[in-house]
């Protein structure tokens, strides 16, 4: 009888016998999970393997959810694939992300004291595989949840592209309730994961007075508070730290202390119920972001203008590209393709009226992206082109604050 992964086996090597479970292997070796929990590998040429017991389906534990509490608000949780809860199969070592309400509440029982939940999987993808088209359906789902009476919506999202999705929803939806993006930087399968604290703080914001789209993530490396960021001003600024999410060109909107759940706000924000629910999810996904670097050939721009309907440039400093690029920009804008200038400094505002090159760039028809981050300008341009094809209209949208992405005054 052949053995399969998951079977209990006896491995004999010389006069030694090992008991364990056959595991998946990526080398030629046979990997066994020994009874003491360790995985070890054997060269199959040196051992014999016998079946001890066929694998048995393990009955998953069932958990009773607490009853609906009429005194608590109802919050919807939509998953796009970020793991807010995961569980470990200690038999095979596999880690799986979980997404029933039961799984989340079992992993983070504190949530049950904050709200009743209705959880649904919207997408099940890695965040790098997110597509602009997926924003549209997500926006519609959020709209439907709010329309059906949700007091707040929590969206779990992988952190890599969370800022794009959050910004997109900020442009697409007018919301009378909180719409909160949350994720975790350290995997949910570790006891130190930031998932639970982020989720608890997100639930606090989702049931708060802060209407609008926000991102709630760790504020520091400690488990002391989460920052609440405006969706159009937040950027992932570190590959791995818990406090990777930072507000750029803005203070955070506020903070949620942990474990008290106390919310403090630093900025004005729309309050619950102030705005009418509305959705405008048309977009033009064929837009691109080009980074100008020393020596970059204007052909990059030429290629972009042949293949895209809108272009955002991440220029140097105040918003510059080499003089060589200026005629190509002019040709692009003449052809009706909007070109938006942002800065690779990220922090600060674009201003092309200071130097000659800048003034030439403006003459060539570039739209100044003010203090928008390049990625936010890209998302906004997709949305603007979804609203109108008129380049003057696009210019007007791009230079007007639509969802908190442009501030009138740069605060220190």
């Amino acid at each position: 009888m052949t053995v399969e992964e998951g079977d209990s086996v006896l491995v004999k090597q010389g006069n030694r016998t090992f008991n364990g479970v056959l595991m998946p292997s990526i080398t030629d070796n046979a990997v066994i999970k020994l009874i003491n929990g360790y995985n070890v590998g054997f060269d199959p040429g040196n051992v014999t393997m016998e079946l001890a017991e066929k694998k048995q389906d393990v009955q998953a534990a069932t958990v009773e959810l607490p009853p609906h509490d009429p005194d608590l608000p109802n919050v919807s949780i939509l998953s796009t694939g970020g793991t807010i809860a995961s569980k470990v199969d200690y038999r095979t070592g596999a880690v799986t992300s979980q997404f029933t309400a039961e799984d989340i509440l079992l992993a983070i029982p504190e949530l049950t004291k904050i709200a009743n939940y209705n959880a649904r999987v919207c997408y099940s993808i890695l965040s790098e595989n997110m597509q602009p088209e997926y924003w549209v359906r997500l926006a519609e789902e959020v709209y439907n949840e709010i329309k059906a009476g949700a007091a707040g919506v929590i969206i779990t999202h992988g952190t890599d592209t969370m800022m794009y999705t959050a910004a997109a929803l900020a442009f697409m939806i007018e919301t009378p309730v909180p719409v909160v993006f949350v994720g975790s930087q350290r995997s949910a399968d570790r006891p130190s994961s930031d998932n639970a604290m982020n989720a608890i703080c997100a639930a606090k914001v989702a049931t708060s007075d802060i209407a609008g789209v926000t991102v709630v993530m760790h504020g520091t490396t400690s488990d002391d508070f989460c920052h609440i960021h405006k969706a159009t001003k937040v950027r992932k600024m570190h590959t791995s730290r818990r406090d990777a999410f930072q507000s750029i060109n803005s203070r955070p909107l506020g903070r949620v202390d942990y474990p008290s759940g106390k919310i403090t706000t630093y900025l004005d924000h729309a309050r619950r119920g102030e705005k009418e629910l509305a959705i405008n999810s048309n977009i033009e996904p064929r837009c691109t972001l080009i980074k100008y670097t020393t020596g970059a050939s204007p052909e990059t721009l030429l290629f972009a203008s042949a293949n895209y309907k809108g272009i955002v440039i991440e220029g140097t400093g105040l918003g510059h590209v080499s003089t060589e690029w200026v005629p190509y920009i002019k040709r692009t804008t003449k052809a009706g393709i909007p070109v938006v200038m942002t800065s690779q400094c990220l922090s600060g505002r674009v201003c092309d009226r200071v130097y000659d090159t800048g003034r030439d760039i403006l003459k060539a028809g570039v739209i100044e992206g003010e203090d928008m981050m390049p990625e936010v300008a890209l998302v906004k341009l997709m949305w603007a082109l979804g609203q109108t094809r008129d380049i003057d209209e696009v210019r007007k949208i791009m230079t007007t604050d639509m969802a908190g992405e442009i501030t009138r005054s740069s605060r220190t």
Partner: protein
Amino acid sequence: MSSKYDYKQLGLMSGLEIHQQLDTKEKLFCGCPTTLRDVEDSNFEFFRYLRPTRSEMGEVDRAAAEEAMLTKQFVYKAYDTTCLVENDEEPPRELNPEALNLTLQIAKLMNMDPFDEVFTMRKIVIDGSNTSGFQRTVLVSTGGYIETSQGKVGVGVLCLEEDAAQRVEDKVDSVIYSLDRQGIPLVEIGTDPDIVSPAHAREVAETIGMLLRSTGRVKRGLGTIRQDVNISIARGARVEIKGVQALDLIETIVEQEVERQVNLLDIMEKLQSNNASVPGDIVNVTNLFNQTQSKVIKKALKRGVVLALDLPGFAGQVGREIQPGRRLGTEFSDYAKKSGVGGIFHTDELPAYGITEQDVDTVREAVGARDGDCVILVADLEDRAQGALQMVVERARLALKGIPEETRRGLPDGNSAYMRPLPGAARMYPETDVPSEVITRDMLDSIELPELLPERKARYMEELGLNEELAGIVASKHLELFEKIITEVPGINPTLVASAFDNGKHSALDTPYIDSTLVASTLVNTLTKLRRESELTHDFDIDEVESHHYVDLFKLIVSGGAAKEVIPVLLIEIAQNPEKDIEDIAKKMGLGQKRIEDIERSVENIINQRIDFVKEQGIGAVGPLMGEVMKEFRGSVPGKILSNILKEKIEARLNSSE
């Protein structure tokens, strides 16, 4: 050691688990150095909470669950020698190849055949000692053995692990850890339960320690090796006693654990014949203590309550000693402390602590205790007190059945205190951030066995003429440096000296007599003195002196460029100016062999002139004569050298005149 018990008859089974830090350049999963720091030097701190992860059976490990009961805050001290990996803010790097190689060498020393592929696993530990909530560990081999006076002792486990953070301070609601230690590679060596007596346990620990030190690449000093002892007797239970730092204690630990288990079994029998039981009803008796004179209780009552628990049939047993100075009540108290209380009271020890006979009587009445019952009291915040008595209920129920399987903390007196239940297997899963390592035949074949310490010591005595003490210390503590000096400096190693003479390069006349004893004694005695001095004065850091400096130093002495008397002074000079050339330093100081001989002659003259004074004062003459010697040389020679020579000459004179 006179044995209280017949261990064979009791069915003693004991195994050791030895954790030894490796002296690698970098930590196991990051590029940080394996240096320990003063907590005062911490430049950053942060805090976290940990929560148990759930297995697919919906279970959390029982040890992990108990730790989670305490929602404690863990505060971590970070340094300029730690990084985001220790902070659990960055994925680990690949397994340190230096550490893996050393572990394979250790496997060979323990007669082991490592697995063909090894995997980094995560072992869940949520007491905060690892920022991630798990300890990374690699099982490298099983099935080895070592030879002992009682026959072979099996070595069942060899793991390569990351060390945990050092616990600095334990508070009620938080624990402070220092991150310098987290991630230092260590090997865990677990023996089979082949140990037959407390003395044998000690021998096994010593043998394994000797094998490890023979590699010359393990850390030395307090805390760098820790022993856990697994002990059971036939009718008892397996208990793991952690954190035994001194070898001397192993024997006592085993003896006293056997004593504990024997006594607990006896208590169990007494309880059963008393028809003892644990109903587990917890009664609030706060109002009985409104007028109490007990300071402890008064203090607790400011914000808390007094709760009581009746244990029918337990009277007399709770107060019974099970280890020197520890009672069953102490075991109850250890469990109770898990919920954050300072301790418990029990009626076997009352009246005391300001609790009166009358208090005891009213409490007994309130909980319905009869004669033969023992009542437990806890005074603290309500949920803490409640949790504490629930833990006591659990432990008391276990007392009826025998001995619980536990992980215990070794205490300095050879006793132990409860830490947590023995962890189950349900806490191990793969570290997906670290790739596995394939161990090839070539890797194993290329590993050479080190010369074992006893052999090396014997060789140093025989070949180099070192005395036993020096040979032992050099062989185990200064091996690499010593070998480097005697091989690289011509004229020190007698075997090399012989060949040098054959070549006619050196003659006995122009080469000062340098032997390996001078080198050994410099490394063992002079360095120890200088280290003490540098710690006191902070004038220099002796660790600035590197191995190449020593080689240059002894070359200079062999060539006559400096006298051996100036070694301490030169070492200080090098420590202060490690970038300077030694020859220049020595030349500037003008302290060649010839100059020293002149100085010695002058010092002898001074002694001769004052010989009566010297004979009268003995070695106490050094102080008064020093002034004259100093005047003679007017600061051209460092005072330290002069005082050394003066002392040496006076001693010689006193010895010769006796």
